[in-house]
């Protein structure tokens, strides 16, 4: 009897997995490899690397640390993808049937799934306790400290804790402690519930442990662990930052805010721009550490100030991160014939404009211009953080500082708990209007951003880049802006009265007839 069942089971499983194998080979093997070992052709172009299915170790689970994931857990990762990684969601790309089949096939890469004694059992997560405001967050912060979150995630949660530079995954690949201010990039999702689940289950295969034992040992209560999740959630904005194309620089009446922490910045709108790895020119870079910059701008009519803020886990160069740089360079495929030696590279920022405001839609090549059509750049480096250099970039590998320094670009920078805040300033006018962009109000001025995290091995062409966006210096508001609505209202009223008067006039005229 048993043998009949076995044969049936084998038949059924082969049926499932043949279909799953076809889906896998078409869509998954490119990264995860033909044998599921996470060694596909694309594997060495991404950090974190693709999952190795042979060990059946999964980060995003509803089960205790060390347990297998449930099918629902695996389906969630297939459907939604893993945010902040190269893994996309497949829900809209593959049919239900295809996703179920590929899930069954992925499980065949490890014998653990066939072991019936290891059947995964989801934990009971309960519900987030009520209460809002400062007190629950204060409790959350207290336990954030006492259970040691800050060791890796840092005092302010930007992934810059003292242990952060040493972190590796099970395979020895470098791994970042999550920047808790970017919940839209959390692998397992950014809601309070998602965060609480990660605290309970840990992220297997990574340094992130499970904190479930602490509940059993009464180190903290379930409510207190939920408070940690709520505190962590509170570090990120309510909504992921939306990308708006035009930076509006209001004209301010006071002094130009040259310091990154000048109170004038509190009133200025911030614009967020995503950055991606530079993968167009050799040497390409697939693992940029700076994922975006937040930009504010103001002007006084004479000068402009640009405040660029971005999260960076290290104030480079920092010898504590050298081993991490070595691991990054070892993990990624390189265009170089010989592998680079880890070096203490600085952090850098470049802000790019055209040499003059374009009259039409034509803009120079976004990736640092070309020999025939250069771009005007301001470059800042943590190696000399109180200065900036202006110059012309003629392609990605050629930057010519303007002889004599040109129109002075001022710089002030602050590094604070995993964040750079840099203010760059310049006079609007310039004597060299041919190559050093004269800023004019009321015009859309193309602008682009580039950032390097030296402690992630970034320098030269290995950087994070943006495309062209726009900067608009608002003109002083002319008096007619305030008068026209009043005039329009008065005119409408007058017209209305006229219509009413005429209607009444006609009626009385008819009545008389």
């Amino acid at each position, binding site marked *: 009897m*048993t043998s009949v*069942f076995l044969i*049936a*089971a084998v*038949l*059924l499983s082969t*049926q499932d997995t043949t279909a799953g194998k076809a889906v896998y080979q078409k869509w998954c093997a490119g990264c995860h490899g033909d044998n599921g070992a996470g060694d596909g052709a694309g594997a060495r172009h991404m950090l974190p690397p693709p999952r190795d299915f042979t*060990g059946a*170790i999964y980060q995003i689970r509803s089960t205790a*640390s*060390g*347990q*297998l994931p449930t099918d629902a857990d695996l389906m969630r990762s297939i459907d939604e993808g893993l945010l902040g990684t190269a893994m996309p969601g497949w829900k809209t790309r593959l049919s239900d049937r295809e996703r179920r089949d590929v899930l069954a096939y992925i499980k065949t890469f490890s014998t*653990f799934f066939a072991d*019936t*004694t*290891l*059947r995964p059992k989801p934990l009971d997560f309960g519900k987030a306790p009520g209460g809002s405001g400062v007190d629950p967050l204060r409790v959350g912060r207290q336990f954030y400290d*006492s*259970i*040691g979150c800050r*060791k*890796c995630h840092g005092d302010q949660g930007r992934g810059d804790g*003292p*242990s952060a530079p*040493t*972190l*590796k995954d*099970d395979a020895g690949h470098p791994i970042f402690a999550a920047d808790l201010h970017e919940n839209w990039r959390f692998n397992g999702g950014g809601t309070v519930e998602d965060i609480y689940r990660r605290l309970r289950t*840990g*992220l*297997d*295969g*990574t*340094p*992130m*442990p*499970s*904190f*479930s*034992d*602490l509940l059993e*040992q009464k*180190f903290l209560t379930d409510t207190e662990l939920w408070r940690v999740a709520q505190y962590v959630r509170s570090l990120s904005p309510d909504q992921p930052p939306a990308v708006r194309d035009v930076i509006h620089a209001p004209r301010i009446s006071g002094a130009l805010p040259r310091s990154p922490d000048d109170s004038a910045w509190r009133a200025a709108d911030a614009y967020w721009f995503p950055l991606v790895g530079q993968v167009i020119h050799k040497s390409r870079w697939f693992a940029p550490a700076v994922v975006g910059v937040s930009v504010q701008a103001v002007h006084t009519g004479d000068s402009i100030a640009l405040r660029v803020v971005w999260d960076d886990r290290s104030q480079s160069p920092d010898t504590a991160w050298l081993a991490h740089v070595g691991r990054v360079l070892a993990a990624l495929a390189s265009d170089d014939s010989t592998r680079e030696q880890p070096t203490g590279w600085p952090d850098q920022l470049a802000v790019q404009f055209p040499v003059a405001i374009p009259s039409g839609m034509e803009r120079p090549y976004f990736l640092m211009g070309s020999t025939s059509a250069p771009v005007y750049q301001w470059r800042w480096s943590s190696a000399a953080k109180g200065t900036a250099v202006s110059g012309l970039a003629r392609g990605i590998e050629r930057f010519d500082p303007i002889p004599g320094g040109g129109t002075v670009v001022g710089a002030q920078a602050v590094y604070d708990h995993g964040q750079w805040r840099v203010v760059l300033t310049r006079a609007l006018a310039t004597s060299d209007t041919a190559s050093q962009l004269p800023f004019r109000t009321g015009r859309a001025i193309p602008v682009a951003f580039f950032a390097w995290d030296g402690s992630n091995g970034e320098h030269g062409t290995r950087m994070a880049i943006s495309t062209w966006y726009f900067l608009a210096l608002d003109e002083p508001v002319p008096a007619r802006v305030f008068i026209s609505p009043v005039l329009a209202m008065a005119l409408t009223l007058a017209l209305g009265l006229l219509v009413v008067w005429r209607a009444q006039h006609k009626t009385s005229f008819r009545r008389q007839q």
Partner: protein
Amino acid sequence: MTARLFTVVGGMFLLTVCSKGDQSTVRAAPAPAAQPAVTPSEAGGTITGKIKFTGTAPRNRPIDMSEEAACKAKYKTNPPVEETVVAGPANALANVFVYIREGVPASAKYQAPATSVVLDQNGCRYHPHVLGIMVGQGLEIVNSDPVLHNIKAIAKKNRPFNVSQPSAGMKTVRTFSAPEVMVSLQCNVHGWMNAYLGVRPDPFYAVSGPDGSFKITGLPPGTYTIEAWHEKFGTQTATVTVAGTESKTANFTFAAR
């Protein structure tokens, strides 16, 4: 029509298979306890030996504990160094895991001891650095430091785990279900903390002491392949035949690298 029939039949099979699977799991669970376990004979054979190395031992790297004042304070006289190569007098080599790789009959079942093996986290280091455990035996992980440690087991044949102990006095007990040489234990908060755990289905293993010596006792008569494992110097094997209660010697010499 044929396809539909097949689906129905297949579905019935599936249902039956699944339900059978459930039953067998439930029934199988108490089985290991019911089986009489072989207790290693006190009077069995013994293998002893000394482990040495040739060449110059690499210098163990110093550990910078300045981030953890509470741990650093525990090293008043000798600043802490890593334990990659722990050498004794006359090039004796400690922390070598010695076990019977082949020769113990697969049919022999050995009951895991009821007492747990203790792994202590003290002074931001693991004590001991290399240890052996039997399948099913408890590994009691203790935190003697007033700081956060996480304990991550990196395993291939066993399920891994990663748990946290943020304060002194915390205890976690874990077991391992399959033989594996070695399971790596790490703390990610303190990148220098690592330990190695040999998981065996039998009690015939030992870890060499500071003088490089080891002793495996209670062996049934037989011919055994012994393997000596060192985290830096690799592995070596020897074949030893033991009869009755006799004592045999197996010395190992590693080349420093």
